[in-house]
């Protein structure tokens, strides 16, 4: 068990931000166990250096002085004007992180530079896959006539290029400041002003009014921030027309993505603002695929992406162990499989078994 700690010490980690995912009643129980034993405790018997979705990471030892630093994030947040928090896929703690940077979206050299640069991959990915579904297209506006929903649009970094390519886009984001920034930015361009509409809301809120209206739904760099992926995907399914496309880009949940995506990118190099990502919420392509398939979306493509922090360009890659993009198409009626029988990596097996038995929303209490 000490191997895991040495590994982390080697990486120079002395404090770790972590979360607790559990039902409210269980929280106190775990806490008391840890304090009373006064030794290294892993609340679930898993390989020491692998973090599971449910873990509280606590390191207490007589010999080593690890400082454990937990961010207490209250479930109920004073940003009441945003939305109602019941039955939502939006994580209020994530909201706070993005709020602080709401005005920085459009600085191409600033904190969001990697996202600006990612457009070089994601826009052609979306455009080319959508063009396959149409016979001809207007030369200047390849996506004209299409209705697209950009979920978690932030400041509109991806929404605007899609608008320029001719699509009618609705961008939604739970952080109202992001929507304000996006509105202001598009207001200067008469063309975009007409083609793009922004709303400050969560996906669940518009499901009913927009059922089966979109030719494409984009959830780029979003699924690693939602609380309940299953519900999120179901909502996506509901708003898509039959045969329409769902595009997702996100981060894989591997040791490499922890080392590079969190330790290096956030804490050492500052490529990504600290606290943007939490490793436990990363989604592996296998899990994503299984959720998509079990919700009536057939996966067409999964492709790895790689960011070179020196050149500041993204590249496609065979390797999906860091970032990846997925394209799925809404097929026929929604099917529900029992995920326990599907083939998955060991660290997610337990999660899947629990997911299939826990229907509905899991609450997340940040510790």
């Amino acid at each position, binding site marked *: 068990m000490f191997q895991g700690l040495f590994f982390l010490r080697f990486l120079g980690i002395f404090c770790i931000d972590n979360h607790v995912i559990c039902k409210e009643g269980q929280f106190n129980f775990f806490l008391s166990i840890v304090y009373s034993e006064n030794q290294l405790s892993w609340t679930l018997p898993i390989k020491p250096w692998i973090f599971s979705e449910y873990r509280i990471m606590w390191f207490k030892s007589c010999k080593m002085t690890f400082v454990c630093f937990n961010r207490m994030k209250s479930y109920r947040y004073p940003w009441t004007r945003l939305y109602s928090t019941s039955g939502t896929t939006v994580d209020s703690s994530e909201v706070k992180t993005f709020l602080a940077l709401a005005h920085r979206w*459009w600085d*191409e050299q600033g904190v969001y530079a990697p996202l600006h*640069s990612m457009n070089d991959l994601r*826009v052609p990915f979306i455009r080319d896959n959508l063009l396959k579904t149409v016979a001809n297209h207007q030369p200047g506006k390849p996506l004209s006539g299409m209705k697209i929903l950009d979920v978690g649009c932030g400041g509109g970094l991806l929404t605007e*290029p899609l608008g320029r390519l001719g699509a009618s886009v609705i961008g939604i984001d739970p952080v109202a400041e992001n929507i304000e920034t996006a509105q202001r930015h598009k207001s200067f361009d008469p063309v975009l002003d007409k083609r793009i509409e922004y709303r400050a809301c969560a996906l669940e809120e518009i499901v009913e009014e927009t059922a089966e209206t979109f030719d494409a739904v984009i959830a780029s760099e979003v699924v690693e921030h939602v609380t309940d992926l299953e519900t999120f995907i179901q909502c996506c399914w509901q708003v898509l027309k039959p045969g329409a496309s769902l595009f997702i880009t996100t981060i894989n949940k591997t040791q490499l993505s922890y080392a590079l995506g969190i330790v290096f990118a956030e804490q050492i190099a500052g490529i990504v603002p600290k606290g943007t990502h939490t490793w436990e919420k990363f989604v592996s392509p296998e899990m994503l695929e299984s959720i998509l398939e079990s919700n009536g979306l057939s996966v067409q493509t999964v492709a790895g992406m790689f960011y070179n922090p020196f050149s500041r360009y993204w590249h496609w890659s065979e390797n999906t162990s860091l970032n990846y993009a997925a394209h799925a198409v809404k097929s026929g009626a929604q099917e529900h499989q029992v995920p326990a029988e599907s083939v998955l990596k060991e660290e997610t097996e337990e999660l899947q078994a629990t997911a299939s038995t826990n229907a509905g929303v899991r609450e997340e209490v940040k510790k």
Partner: protein
Amino acid sequence: MGTMAARLAVSRWVAARAAARRGPLVSCRRWSGVATDTVYDVVVSGGGLVGAAMACALGFGAWDHICNMRYRAFRRMQVWDACSEALIVFDKDNLDDMGYIVENDVIMHALTKQLEAVSDRVTVLYRSKAVGYTWPYSFPMADSSPWVQITLGDGSTLQTKLLIGADGHNSGVRQAAGIQNVSWNYDQSAVVATLHLSEATENNVAWQRFLPSGPIALLPLSDTLSSLVWSTSHEHAAELVSMDEEKFVDAINSAFWSDVNHTDFIDSAGTMLHYAIAFLKPTKVSARQLPPSVARVDAKSRALFPLGLGHAAEYVRPRLALIGDAAHRVHPLAGQGVNMGFGDISSLVHHLSTAAFNGKDLGSMSHLTGYETDRQRHNTALLAATDVLKRLYSTSATPLVLLRTWGLQATNAVSPLKEQIMAFASK
């Protein structure tokens, strides 16, 4: 380029050089229902060769118009020194043309015609002068326009997402943006004229002779017409332009034929190397041809302009790109000035069309820096080479003459090297 629909405005400076005259202002397009100023996708400031060509390229090709007018293909290029017998000949073995000589006015006429053809996408504002530019903040600030504002002489303003500066070596756009420019003047002016040859020939060879005062070049335009470009000192250039026709023609002929600058020492050194090369490489050696002699000059075709070198430290800024002489100014001895400008256009159009197809904001630095890197690499090499050649050939000091004589002969002997030079210049 078919994929891009651009809104353009080209504002024409009142240039010193002769240019086709057209009627007054063409009106601007407006977005329906929007009362505020139109936002153009691209504005090209400067309506010379490069500016108009840029507007056409963003609208579409003009070569067809040129083909209906006067131009000349050339197959061979002979360049030699006045101080020695050394010469270099560029020749393509196959029957393809090496290049084309087209007069400025012909190109302008073709471009103007093409601009009319694409007038639904391109608006040309003749006789308008830009008096001021307002740059956007690099960081989006609340309520300030993110576009470039251009104030015209008549008080109206244009807004655009990308401003392209094609307004010549004294570029107002470049100065307004505060971009550093490395430049110096050569103490030379170039005299240009259209000449009538004494007899009609096939005339598909371009000639250039390096005199100590500067190179003189004869470029074919038709069987009986050639274009003259003679770079020489300011005083001599002024003399040439004002002297009467007969004396002018005599001056040209003697510049090409006279041996007054030869010295015995250099001649023997040159002959020595010549035999050495013939011994080592006994393949075909292109025979030295004699340039045609000139009979008359076209009455109003004589003009002169000063020469210098210039290179902008940056070709691009957010929402700004410089092309043509605004970015780089070169000596005409290699005939590459406007070619570099056309190369700039080709590269910029390529980058802009890729960006547009990716839905990017046209003024974004991400693709503009790609254009800059592309072109700076190519242009810097050419500028440096041209400057070195100019300095090397501006002297009649014996050591340098020896150096360049042997250098020229050696280069002439190495065919792969000549092919590389031709390929580079044709880019």
